[in-house]
């Protein structure tokens, strides 16, 4: 993907902290309107990259292009186009939900009336109308996170940076935040999502990049990543004495097998297509069968293991 068609492009971006490399030679393109996911383990450099992209810190090396033009992310015009939802719940606990939104709207230049209107709009958007007058510290963690998301939207930014928005949330709260992110995507916003929740990345992102120890190791759609890094597998429980049959049929079908405890794990190309032949041959000695489709998490974990090895 060329930088000309991308909304944001990073070229050779690096950042050092006290001589230690946090990010090294990042090349990345984010297209307009897409939800781009940055996945990686803790300490991979995800937050550092978001802080550079939002102009909160400067890179040690490299450049950032917006719509093909080199740009300092501290530039006021660029900042007007971006919204940030930081990793920690960023709000004033002793202000009400409504006051938090009005404050940010006012700081973004809206007059009193417009700020109040925008706050009301966003409270409805985040499903918090009933909690408008409650001090933010008394809201549940999930509500606080939705409020935080709404606060990032207060000036209707074109690009939204979300730094682990569901970290520490229960499944229900997480799902409601995901709904909001999908809403953003539906509104045509470009979303840059840093997460280590792979279910979240799989569900929300159009494209992904895997960041490991400050470097981008893989990029692509979730499917591409899954195909690249993982395979479906068949888990079989077999009676004693069937090992010969298993070995023979796997050899014939071009599949490989290995034993994990008492279970035999079969992998190989076109596993679903070869499944009937395999099962019919082993019917007499088969007492357990489980077909597992590969998830992004499987792929990621496997990839991490490979990288660490």
């Amino acid at each position, binding site marked *: 993907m060329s930088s000309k068609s991308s909304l944001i492009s990073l070229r050779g971006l690096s950042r050092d902290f006290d001589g230690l490399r946090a990010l090294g030679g990042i090349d990345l393109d984010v297209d307009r309107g897409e939800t781009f996911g940055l996945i990686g383990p803790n300490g991979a450099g995800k937050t550092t990259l978001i*802080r550079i992209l939002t102009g*909160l810190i400067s890179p040690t090396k490299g450049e950032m292009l917006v719509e093909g033009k080199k740009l300092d992310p501290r530039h006021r015009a660029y900042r007007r186009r971006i*919204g*940030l939802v930081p990793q920690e719940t960023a709000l004033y606990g002793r202000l009400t939900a409504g006051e938090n939104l009005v404050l940010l709207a006012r700081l973004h230049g809206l007059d009193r009336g417009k700020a109040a209107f925008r706050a009301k709009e966003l409270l409805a958007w985040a499903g918090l109308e009933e909690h408008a007058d409650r001090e933010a510290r008394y809201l549940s963690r999930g509500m606080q996170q939705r409020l935080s998301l709404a606060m990032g939207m207060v000036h209707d930014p074109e690009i939204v940076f979300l730094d682990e928005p569901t970290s520490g949330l229960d499944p229900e709260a997480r799902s409601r935040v995901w709904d909001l992110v999908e809403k953003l995507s539906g509104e045509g916003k470009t979303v840059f999502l840093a997460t280590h929740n792979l279910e979240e990345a799989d569900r929300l992102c159009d494209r992904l990049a895997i960041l490991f120890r400050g470097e981008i190791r893989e990029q692509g759609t979730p499917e591409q990543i899954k195909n690249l890094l993982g395979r479906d597998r068949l888990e079989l429980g077999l009676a004693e004495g069937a090992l010969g049959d298993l070995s023979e049929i796997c050899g014939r079908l071009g599949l490989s097998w290995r034993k994990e405890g008492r279970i035999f794990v079969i992998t190989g190309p076109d596993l679903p297509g070869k499944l009937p032949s395999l099962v019919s041959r082993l019917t007499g000695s088969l007492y357990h069968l489980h077909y597992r489709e590969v998830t992004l998490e499987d792929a990621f974990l496997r990839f991490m293991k490979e990288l660490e090895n």
Partner: protein
Amino acid sequence: MRGWRTLLAKDWKLIRRNRLLLSVLIVYPFLIMGVIGAAFQESGRPVPVGLVNLDDPGREGVLCVVLDSPDAGRTEGEVRRRAYGYGECTSEEQALADLEAGKFNLVIAREDGRVGGRRLYGALMDSESLQSLVMELEDSATEARFYTSFREAADSLAGMEGGVLLALPHRLHPSLGESLWVGGESYDALRLIREFSGDVVDLEIFPGLEEARGTLREGRVDAVVVLPPGFVHRLKTLEKVAEVNVILDQSNLVKAEFAETGIRGFFSRVTEEVVEEKMRAVVAGLYVLVSGGDFFGTPIIGLERIREDLADLYVALSDRPELGIKVQEGIDLADMVIEDIEKAADYLRGTALPVDLRISSVAGRPLAAKDAVVPALIVLSMLWTGVLCGAVLMVLEEEEGMRARLRLTPAGPLAMVTAKLILASGVVILQSLVMLLLAVAVFRTFASGLWISLLIIAVSSLSFIGIGQMLAAFARQVAGAVIMSVLVTFPLIFLTGAIFPLTQMPAFMRGIARASPPTYALDALSGVMLRGEGLAGVFWEIMVLLGFGATLLFAGSLLSGRKSQ
């Protein structure tokens, strides 16, 4: 009780690994001990004292004597009787000009109820008559004050019932520049003070009272001692106590207390030495009366010898009992006189000291402890609130996680810092204003220059908030900012001089105190509220505080910006 050892080890490990906690609990007390120890290591240093010696016969200019005299009404008649030149003066300026031109050698001013104002007249008389008149008037007065400025003397006369002002060329005042013998050496006033004040005070000589007062206001000396004309004469004759005027900077009670103690100490030594010397001479003279010898230059036969002669005579007159009785009366008288002389010698050793210190304030009025404490309280509360407000308000965003979010708004970091500065200044100024008004209106403390005080409070608050903002750059949570503020505020309070006088600290500690904004704030506020300084008098302090404020706020913003990188 199971597991207490493990928990103990855990707590110790946690303290060791938490640098802030480690500093507060363990390192800080040593630091404070070090600071206080350093401040006290040279305690007992000589107190810097200014000296104006009016007992110097070589002084030029006019000497003014303000007398509180019950005989003030008769002064004019006495002057007319002795003068060969006499005339009314229309103004103080003219009187002074006539005095300097030699038309008169004495100018007298007196509040006169009959004419409803001040009578001012001059006289010309021979030096002897002039000196004897001045001496008589001073002796009959209940109080005598000496000035080198006619204006100042005239001001002090205002509203003084029975007060009279005499202005004369300094050299014409009687009994100037006399010397006395102590330990076989001759001392004039200056040498006497220098000799006996050596390790107690550090003397700086000033030609006039105005310069000495100015230096006292600036804090370069802790007190001014004014030796009256005829100081040594009084010591010599012991006819009347020598009144020494001591001016203290009572706007700082600790400093004033130190200075007064030091001055009283060395005057005690002076007077003890002088009195002892004189007593030794008198006692020696008395013993010569008894035993015979050189009685102040005259060889005499002692009473003991006379008694022995009388005893011989009594024996020789044994056959003339009527004469023997008369001789026996002479012998008894001699015994009685010898005994009385010995008692008198013992009595003289306990004679009262001949110097009286009259303590006054540089503010021109005595200050009570409650007056003097107000500026210190205001500065200390400003320091506390300013540093705390500056630090806590800056860290608040950090703790709420809002810092990054606010930085992305068009408002920007400058607006953020400015808003916090205005709020913190408002809190500090309002708090100080309430304290000031309470002190003046409710507790009736003395305070002048309220508007300039407010200006100083406003300017000082910038520095204090700046310190807080600098500290905020090293804290990420409000609790941390509070602890750091306490750690920094405490030594700064100590360095203001409100608790321990700066002049008693070693040079390097004074240097540190001079690099600390609260020192200037206290100096300026005390100057305006208690010493009656105007804007010009505290202009330097205000400029320094502004400089500190700008530098600290800039450094705070810089550090804060670096932290976010």
